[in-house]
């Protein structure tokens, strides 16, 4: 099946002339048409542009010139990432008809590498959410069980890759938004170090935390994509000017990559509230690494329990500032016939933002407001330092940290929708990585009794992408969880 190919395999067949980019792209578009009634992963499908790009890719492949690492590969892009001439909504009504006049740097990098963009995928509105239920365009469903969430906020990215609608997708991760959906849908997701990948043209949620990364079928593809995405961008002042290593070389050792790897297991990440099957699968995954030559030890990240409180002060504070730009003047929705400029702002924002976005804007405005700044915002920034130091201490004796991604497997649609705090707490095991700015990869490592995927999280020190990829590839090479595919949902409709 063309839809089941990895990028590495497809690229090889494309170069040998055994497969055409047009056929591969058609297969992806057919798959989207057949499955998206059930999944609702795509907000915009760019079929014509994709077929034109595929034809150009075939021409390049035939000539043997201008062939990049992603030539002819169908890829989906999360709808918070700007695509020139293609509607970009951030899954919000306030940007319903917004068409960017430029590409995000990550979009240009994909195009320059030859990728075929098949469309824009669903997410939580402005990337705020852990389930994809906050999209203004309806929830994306988990291909493993249509009654369950795909995780958020990059839920459309994850569902599209898991269900074979695209070979890979771009996501963004502010508090776990690449890793949680990757875990819930049984694929690989990589959140790079803060500063490794440009944020230029990425619709901002929380600027000190946001980072773009790939969702892919396996670790090899994630490494390949990171090599395309990473690197300094003068248009993002937080992008770090540092050479991009050869990530493919980092994983070339396969299972031998685990040899002498020092692996820390933080006890706080295996605490109460963890679904027993999740704990068993992640500990078994650590044992796989040990059997391959890694050295395991227990460690402590003592401020873990404060992560959610810290994050949900800082991220909404930054969001309340970032989202001030949606005022109904220059682009996006404008409420009709407002009497004054103030009413125009207030009515536009009231009509354009969804409930969770309003909640975070209110929360952020509150914690930054006069009299509360020190107690909440400044306090949270100091706690962020403590969380960062926890990781620094552990990395003094460890190459990577291995943890579960989420306390449970994918939950049911509607299960947490009326309890925002319960939803926030599902981010407890991913948030620390963002607060500390670290790289982390998620790979599938098991299934629970209902057959739902379980993810393994491997965290590295700053700019330690090579080592987390190496560890994840070693695990993957010793197991076959990454080969599992969800049931075919072609022709099915979404359950009521």
């Amino acid at each position, binding site marked *: 099946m063309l839809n089941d190919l990895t990028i590495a395999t497809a690229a090889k067949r494309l170069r040998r002339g055994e497969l055409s980019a047009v056929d591969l792209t058609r297969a992806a578009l057919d798959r989207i048409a057949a499955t998206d009634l059930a999944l609702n992963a795509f907000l915009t499908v760019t079929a014509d542009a994709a077929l034109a790009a595929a034809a150009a890719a075939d021409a390049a492949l035939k000539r043997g010139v201008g062939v990049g690492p992603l030539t002819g590969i169908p890829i989906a892009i999360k709808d918070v990432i700007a695509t020139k001439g293609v509607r970009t909504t951030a899954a919000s009504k306030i940007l319903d008809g*917004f*068409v960017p*006049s430029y590409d995000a740097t990550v979009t240009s990098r994909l195009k320059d590498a030859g990728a075929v963009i098949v469309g824009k995928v669903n997410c939580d509105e402005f990337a705020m959410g852990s389930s994809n239920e906050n999209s203004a365009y309806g929830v994306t469903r988990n291909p493993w069980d249509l009654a369950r969430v795909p995780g958020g906020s990059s839920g459309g990215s994850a569902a599209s890759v898991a269900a074979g609608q695209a070979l890979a997708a771009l996501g963004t991760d502010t508090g776990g938004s690449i890793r949680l959906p990757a875990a819930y849908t049984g694929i690989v997701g990589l959140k790079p170090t*803060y*500063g490794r990948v440009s944020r230029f043209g990425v619709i901002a949620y929380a600027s*000190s935390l946001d980072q773009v990364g790939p969702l892919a079928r396996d670790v090899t593809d994630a490494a390949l994509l990171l090599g395309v995405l990473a690197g300094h961008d*003068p248009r993002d*002042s*937080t992008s*770090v000017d540092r050479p991009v290593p050869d990530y493919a070389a980092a994983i070339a050792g396969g299972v031998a990559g685990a040899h002498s790897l020092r692996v820390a297991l933080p006890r706080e990440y295996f605490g109460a509230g963890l679904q027993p099957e999740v704990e068993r699968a992640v500990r078994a995954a650590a044992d796989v690494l040990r059997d391959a030559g890694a050295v395991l030890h227990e460690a402590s990240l003592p401020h873990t*329990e*404060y992560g959610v*409180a*810290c994050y*949900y*002060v800082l991220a909404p504070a930054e969001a309340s500032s970032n989202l*001030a730009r949606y*005022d109904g*003047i*220059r*682009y*996006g929705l*404008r409420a009709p016939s*407002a*009497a*004054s*400029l103030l*009413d*125009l702002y*207030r*009515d536009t*924002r*009231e009509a354009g*933002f969804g*409930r969770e976005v*309003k*909640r975070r*804007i*209110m*929360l952020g*405005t*509150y*914690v930054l407001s006069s009299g509360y700044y020190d*107690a*909440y915002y400044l*306090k*949270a*920034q*100091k*706690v*962020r*330092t*403590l969380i*960062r130091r926890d990781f620094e201490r552990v990395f003094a004796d460890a190459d990577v940290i291995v943890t579960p991604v989420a306390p449970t497997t994918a939950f049911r649609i509607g299960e947490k929708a009326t309890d*925002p*705090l319960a939803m*926030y707490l599902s981010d407890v095991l991913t948030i620390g990585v963002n*607060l*500390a*700015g670290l790289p982390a990869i998620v790979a599938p490592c098991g299934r629970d009794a209902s057959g739902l995927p379980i993810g393994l999280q491997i965290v590295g020190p700053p700019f330690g992408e090579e080592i987390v990829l190496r560890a994840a590839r070693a695990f993957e090479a010793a197991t076959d969880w990454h080969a599992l595919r969800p049931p075919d949902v072609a022709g099915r409709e979404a359950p009521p």
Partner: protein
Amino acid sequence: MKLSVDRIRHVALLARLALTPEEERELAATLDQILAHMDTLSRLDTTDVEPTAHVAAVETPWRDDVVTNAPDTAALLANAPARDDDLFLVPKIID
């Protein structure tokens, strides 16, 4: 209850949101619960701890003060919800 509806209304004005009465009630309740969870931060002694605003040790980057993006009025106005020729149109702000 820490957050009165009056306080919610004040914050909504700062945030430029015209909330409905139902939203005001719902937000008062959920923000109260969320802020109670955030109060756990006060258990930590952070007296001598420096705040982290940013994890990347990036100095302010400098470049020459030259225009790198050519002006493109048509592209910039293409998404405007209301315009008059080459201008954004807004409600009257000065009488």
